[in-house]
């Protein structure tokens, strides 16, 4: 092929970019990002766990008791504790990112990012309160 008109003459002599397989260990912020991405696995686990709970409840008291006993085994307990910590990390980092994604305007004025963040935490507290009321108070 003749020298392409679109490719500059220097193209065949450039040093191509290289990114290490372990790029995510090079900076703390990269590592925190990977942890946040990994926490999605635990989000998925809690969805599966919830579906298993719903199925056990639907199958009657015996199945529900069996599910509770299975949930109390050390392995599942450990997985759920790690999952809970991962989900809290996921939620906190997700909320921290929210003001960047959501620009809320009231009339001509922008709502400060701190208020957007506070709104997310208020929603979290409200949702948790409803769940607590369903479990304990209802």
């Amino acid at each position, binding site marked *: 092929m003749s020298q392409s008109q679109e490719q500059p003459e220097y193209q065949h002599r*450039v040093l191509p*970019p290289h*990114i290490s397989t372990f790029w995510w260990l090079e900076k703390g912020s990269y590592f925190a*990002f990977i942890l946040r991405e990994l926490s999605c696995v635990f989000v998925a686990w809690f969805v599966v766990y919830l579906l298993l709970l719903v199925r056990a409840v639907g199958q009657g008291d015996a199945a529900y008791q069996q599910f509770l006993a299975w949930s109390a085994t050390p392995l599942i307990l450990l997985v759920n504790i790690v999952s809970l910590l991962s989900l809290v990390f996921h939620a906190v980092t997700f909320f921290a*990112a929210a003001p960047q*994604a959501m620009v809320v305007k009231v009339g*001509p004025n*922008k709502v400060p990012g701190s208020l957007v963040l506070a709104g997310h935490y208020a929603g979290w507290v409200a949702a948790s309160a409803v769940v607590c009321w369903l479990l304990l108070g209802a």
Partner: protein
Amino acid sequence: MADQIKLQVARYRPGQESEATFDDYDVPCPKEWVVLDGLNHVKDRIDGTLSYRWSCRMGVCGSCGMMVNGEPKLTCATFLADYAPGPVRIEPLRNFPVIRDLIVDIGDFMRKLATVKPWIVREEEKPLSAGEYRQTPEQLDDYKQYSMCINCMLCYSACPVYGLDPNFIGPAAIALAQRYNLDSRDEGSAERVAVLSEHAGIWGCTFVGECTKVCPKNVDPAGAIQRYKLTAAVETVKAFFMPRGAQ
């Protein structure tokens, strides 16, 4: 304060070397010298073969971006004294092909930038006699932050997604697309959506957030991308539920 500081400068001489090497240079380190001053000293007094880009020396032109001790920096705004006693490792911007020494090829960005039409698109231009397109300060405020981009490429260098997926349009191009999408004078957002809503567009971004951290002009490209994700998602839902033409 140290009188001198050692610069470890990446060198790549095409045709002579197959990979980058490092040359050490001792340069003066007065408190007012930036890294670019150190490089200029090397070029003028020690080794005239050193190649790098620079122009304005005041953080406006965006040409002197390099990796300084592993971080993407404008070398005209990075003081040598902050790295004392040294050494200071200076490399070409990461994620780009290196043409020579500290000069990278940003052709990939320039090609991608054109695809998002970073200019005001009008369906129909007003005649000159109709006067200028006026904006309120609030309308200007909607996009002004994104208009501060100087194409310095620090954000591309900090973005691991761009490093891993060369098809990704990248932070600055998307921020500049948003600069025009949010401009009240522009009518081209529908023309940009096809490029921006692809996987190589906004959905390629996994929100590492480093682009915003390294931006010397506080453009917040990560915020621009996440905002557009929200816009694109809302538009998709509207297109699904609303009758054709009622959007």
